[in-house]
């Protein structure tokens, strides 16, 4: 399998069902940061366009007071509960959006080339290293794009998943020979 993946210049796959939460809170508040960091077991990424992986969840910076938290489907309810408890006395919002988004992975040596057919962001490793995250456009779909070791993960609204899948497959045709 691993060898097969290496032979594929750009492999496209839908990510399995997973937990996704939108967290909104004031990142300037140290108490709030500490409370969230405690639950995530990693500091909340407050630097724009960064992400931070904890034991059970990865936090993606979406905006100065907004994060997408990715976790296993099994941990979804527990994570939401834990955050709501930790933030009970604070102004914050934790909303389950697991069904709102569909994830895809695009991996392989041509992954950046493939995405660059529809994404105006500079995806070269010098400009877009592992862990970097942007919300931007891929062709006509809003995406949240995350660089991972093997390539990229991207998340689109559920109703854009079909369009995005079609688009990715069509864009990848050039590399399938």
């Amino acid at each position, binding site marked *: 399998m691993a060898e097969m993946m290496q032979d594929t210049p750009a492999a496209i796959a839908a990510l399995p069902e997973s937990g996704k939460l939108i967290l909104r809170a004031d990142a300037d508040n140290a108490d709030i940061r500490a409370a969230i960091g405690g639950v995530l077991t990693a500091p909340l990424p407050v630097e*724009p*366009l960064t992400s931070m992986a904890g034991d059970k969840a990865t936090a993606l910076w*979406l*905006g*100065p007071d*907004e994060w997408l938290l990715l976790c296993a489907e099994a941990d979804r309810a527990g994570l939401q509960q834990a955050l709501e408890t930790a933030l009970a006395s604070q102004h914050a919002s934790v909303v389950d959006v697991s069904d709102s988004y569909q994830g895809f992975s695009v991996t392989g040596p041509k992954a950046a080339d493939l995405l660059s057919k529809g994404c*105006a*962001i500079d995806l070269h490793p010098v400009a877009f290293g592992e862990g970097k995250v*942007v*919300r*931007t*456009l891929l062709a006509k779909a*809003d995406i949240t794009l995350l660089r991972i070791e093997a390539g990229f993960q991207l998340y689109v609204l559920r109703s854009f998943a079909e369009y995005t899948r079609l688009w990715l497959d069509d864009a990848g045709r050039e590399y399938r020979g």
Partner: protein
Amino acid sequence: MLTIPCPWCGERDVHEFRSGGEAHLKRERRADALSDAEWADFLFLRANPKGEHAERWYHVHGCRRWFNAVRNTHTDTILAVYKPGEAKPEAAQ
């Protein structure tokens, strides 16, 4: 094509933004006290300068933050960007 430096995300294509028109308009919460003419001025009348113009932009396909930009409407270049509530930067005045 224009790029706009989002105060949070950095330089991005103009496609990712939505324009919100003239900046620094003050919405009066006790507008009952305003005359029709004063209210109409707030509603309808906008500066349309050739040159520097402070305007509102929304990074709709990015961080979803509203911010202000000083743009030269003649050369279509962005001279400064700043966050809501901040004063128009000196350099761009």
